[in-house]
């Protein structure tokens, strides 16, 4: 056990250095082909500081962080670590210096235990039992309870994130980089994480906090660097700003304000799920249990929940990609169609937008007009006649979507994969909205999408409901849900709560439902029994 080596970084970040900078990135430029992903970016971070890195998707946040963590090399510019120039040749160098990173996408093996997963990231030659004890101590110490012997597959996303954090903490980092850490957490779990981060900061650890959730940045960060198109456009104190002013800095212009005025009361039920249960074949999938839900004409119902609690399975059951056991478990406009395929359901004037835009909602190396055919081929509009594709009609739909949703692209009809995430999402949502479906089901409508595109998409959903359609939104983003939903239900481990009016819901109540009562009880027991 190389305790001495691990001690070193934290002692170096002691009080005598507190005033100095921990990390400085000076004039970083990174060029990919023709794109300047980072253009003269300078950032300084002091020990004990929680520093927010803000920016829209594609602003260059990830590039900068990868340069700091050593997985990318800058085209020009330099990094300084505690005042000394340093070359982060690879992540191992960064880790040895005391830089830890918690990625947005976890790199954990489902079939291994917590201890085994952590051991993989540490130098070889560890005694597993000792490591398990250290994991237990460190995790309890920082309020991140973990059972070292638990299989990762059995853990919630929040618990998995704790593994990643504990993995970093065991190496006693002096700089911790967190990439969108709360995207997968319940409000309560996020609150717990903030306590941990503040504790780490008080011990002198610098934290680089990447997020697009402006409220939480305001809550925990002392300083923020804002990137736009690869350039630093501002360095502000988030405490002195409003969420709106931060958003304007990120986007570069006024963010469209969503109009939520609603007309008449909801009409007849258009989408009904009754006692929908569905077992999964996938060992890491989620079985749906006894789901009841009604969405009426003119309303937006949101299904909140943390990723991996059955949202994908629920979407597949409603869209018809997976057939249900009984015809009557899914009703579209009153017609039982649980055994109908997705094409027949589209003919019933229902439309669907899946979570993954690339490879599920769109074929990446097909042109946009061809991706129009993907969902329009079975229905009116003349995209397909007598088995032949009418290319002009497909181009026309593409042009219509482009105009209505302000889809920005280099050429008129590029391959789908060349579009940025936000623009492609506008396309796949717009492709369905232009059909004016009576029923629209959207899974994660603005996941990984910039603020501007998200506003356009949410407005389109509201307008569609306003025109008398039933809209079901499955989303992890609670801000979004409160912004657009009339009623909210929460999915947890394949079970769906009753949909309650949005005004009766609070963050706390949703958080409790997200965690699931049984899960909560288990956790309490676990913490208590941890020695």
């Amino acid at each position, binding site marked *: 056990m190389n305790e001495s080596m691990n001690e070193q970084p934290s002692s170096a970040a002691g009080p005598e250095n507190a005033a100095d900078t921990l990390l400085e990135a000076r004039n970083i430029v990174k060029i990919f082909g023709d794109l300047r992903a980072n253009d003269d970016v300078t950032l300084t971070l002091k020990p004990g500081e929680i520093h927010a890195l803000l920016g829209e998707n594609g602003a260059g946040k990830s590039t900068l962080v990868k340069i700091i963590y050593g997985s990318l090399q800058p085209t020009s510019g330099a990094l300084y670590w505690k005042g000394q120039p340093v070359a982060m040749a690879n992540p191992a160098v960064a880790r040895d210096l005391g830089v830890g990173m918690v990625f947005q996408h976890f790199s954990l093996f489902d079939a291994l235990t917590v201890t085994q997963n952590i051991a993989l990231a540490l130098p070889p030659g560890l005694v597993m039992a000792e490591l398990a004890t250290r994991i237990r101590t460190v995790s309890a110490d920082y309020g991140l309870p973990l059972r070292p012997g638990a299989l990762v597959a059995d853990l919630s996303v929040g618990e998995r994130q704790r593994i990643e954090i504990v993995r970093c903490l065991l190496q006693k980092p002096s700089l911790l980089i967190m990439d969108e850490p709360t995207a997968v957490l319940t409000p309560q779990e996020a609150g717990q994480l903030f306590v941990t981060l503040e504790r780490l900061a008080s011990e002198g650890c610098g934290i680089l906090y990447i997020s697009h959730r402006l409220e939480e940045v305001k809550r925990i960060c002392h300083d923020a660097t804002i990137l736009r198109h690869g350039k630093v456009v501002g360095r502000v104190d988030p405490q002195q700003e409003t969420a709106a002013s931060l958003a304007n800095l990120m986007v570069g212009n006024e963010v469209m304000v969503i109009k939520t005025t609603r007309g008449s009361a909801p009409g007849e039920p258009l989408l009904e799920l009754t006692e929908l249960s569905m077992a999964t074949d996938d060992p890491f999938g989620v079985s749906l249990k006894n789901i009841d839900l009604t969405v009426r004409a003119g309303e937006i119902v949101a299904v909140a929940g943390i990723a991996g609690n059955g949202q994908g399975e629920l979407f597949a059951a409603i869209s018809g990609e997976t057939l249900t056991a009984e015809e009557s478990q899914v009703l579209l406009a009153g017609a039982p169609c649980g055994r109908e395929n997705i094409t027949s359901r589209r003919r019933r004037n229902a439309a669907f937008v899946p979570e993954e835009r690339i490879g599920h909602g769109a074929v990446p190396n097909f042109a946009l007009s061809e991706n129009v055919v993907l969902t329009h081929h079975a229905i009116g509009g003349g995209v397909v006649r007598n088995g032949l*594709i009418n290319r002009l009609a497909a181009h026309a739909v593409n042009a219509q979507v482009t105009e209505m949703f302000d889809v920005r692209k280099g050429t008129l009809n590029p391959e789908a994969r060349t579009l940025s995430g936000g623009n492609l999402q506008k396309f796949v949502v717009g492709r369905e909205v232009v059909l004016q479906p009576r029923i629209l089901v959207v899974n994660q409508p603005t996941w990984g999408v910039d603020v501007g595109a998200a506003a356009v998409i949410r407005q389109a959903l509201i307008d569609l409901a306003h025109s008398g359609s039933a809209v079901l939104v499955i989303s992890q983003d609670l801000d979004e849900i409160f912004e657009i939903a009339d009623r909210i239900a929460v999915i947890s481990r394949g079970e769906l709560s009753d949909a309650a009016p949005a005004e009766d819901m609070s963050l706390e109540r949703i958080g409790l439902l997200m965690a699931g009562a049984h899960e909560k009880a288990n956790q309490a027991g676990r913490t208590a029994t941890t020695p």
Partner: protein
Amino acid sequence: MKIILEKRIEHSRVMALLSPLLAIAITVVIGGIIFASLGLDPAEALYVYFVEPVTTLWSIEELIVKAAPLVLIGAGLAICYSANVWNIGAEGQLTIGALFGSAIPVYFTTWQSPLTLVVMLVLGGFGGALFAAIPAALKNRFGANEILTSLMLVYVAQLLLDWLVRGPWRDPQGYNFPQSVPFEGWQQLPLLGEGRVHIGAIFAVMAVIVLAIMMGRSLRGFEIRVVGNSPRAGAFAGFHQKRVVWFTFMLSGALAGLAGICEVAGPSGELQPSISPGYGFTAIIVAFLGRLNPIGVLFAGFLLAISYLGGEAAQVELGISDKTAQVFQGMLLFFILACDTMILYRIKIASGRSASAKA
């Protein structure tokens, strides 16, 4: 210095067209080196191999005779491969198609009517499709790898043919030679003109036109391309992957079977233990060289037909083995696949500094 493959933002249309030409050029260069190392004059050898076959009317006709089955099979395989369905067994489907169609002259030796030929051709296509349905069924039902099953079935088909022509289907008046009764009159394909070119060439062109329209314009072609590119998006579009596997396998099998019956009812005029110089395998190269595009397959079919004729010419004039043809075909496929990398990637030469930083 370090050479890096960098992913392109959008696939390069220029490279998609250039890649086969580049592959042909590299094949010619390497071929020249091989000839030189055999002690031959590379310029003369390459001339004999690639140019001479298209200098006389006779050899051009022979080129068409060889290209017709390659195009017919290659066009079907191009559709199959577009769907990410890997039918490697066209040679077997060709053989079974030839057997099915030949059943008419063998069992109804005296039946002479235009309908005879029609029935033979239909049976040929049917036999090929039926034989191709076996790997399709194994893939759809059990998830068996179709590359393996379709390839192994080639040997089953060839041994079946061998057994038939040496046993039950042997011509009683054939002095014990392993061959069937000779096909006569309406049991043979009508010739185009005076030479050996028969109406199989027309079938090939028709297949190219029909399949080009199907892939370019029809929903069925779109379905095949979507499922081949992105099965999840295909399911979201309401397309069935299994249906596409059935369709593409049986379509390519039918075309291979048609090519098979055209071989025995055309140039051969009877069943023999060997009815094809590996058309079913060479057509795999044709499909790739033709960019999995039916129109491209038409051109690629002629090029690969040259390699057959060139192989024969090289044997006669240069005294080297006719296996040279296979060497050239193999090199060509190898270089196409290598050059195709350039469609999605570009080569970048990195400076020494950052390369050493990574090491």
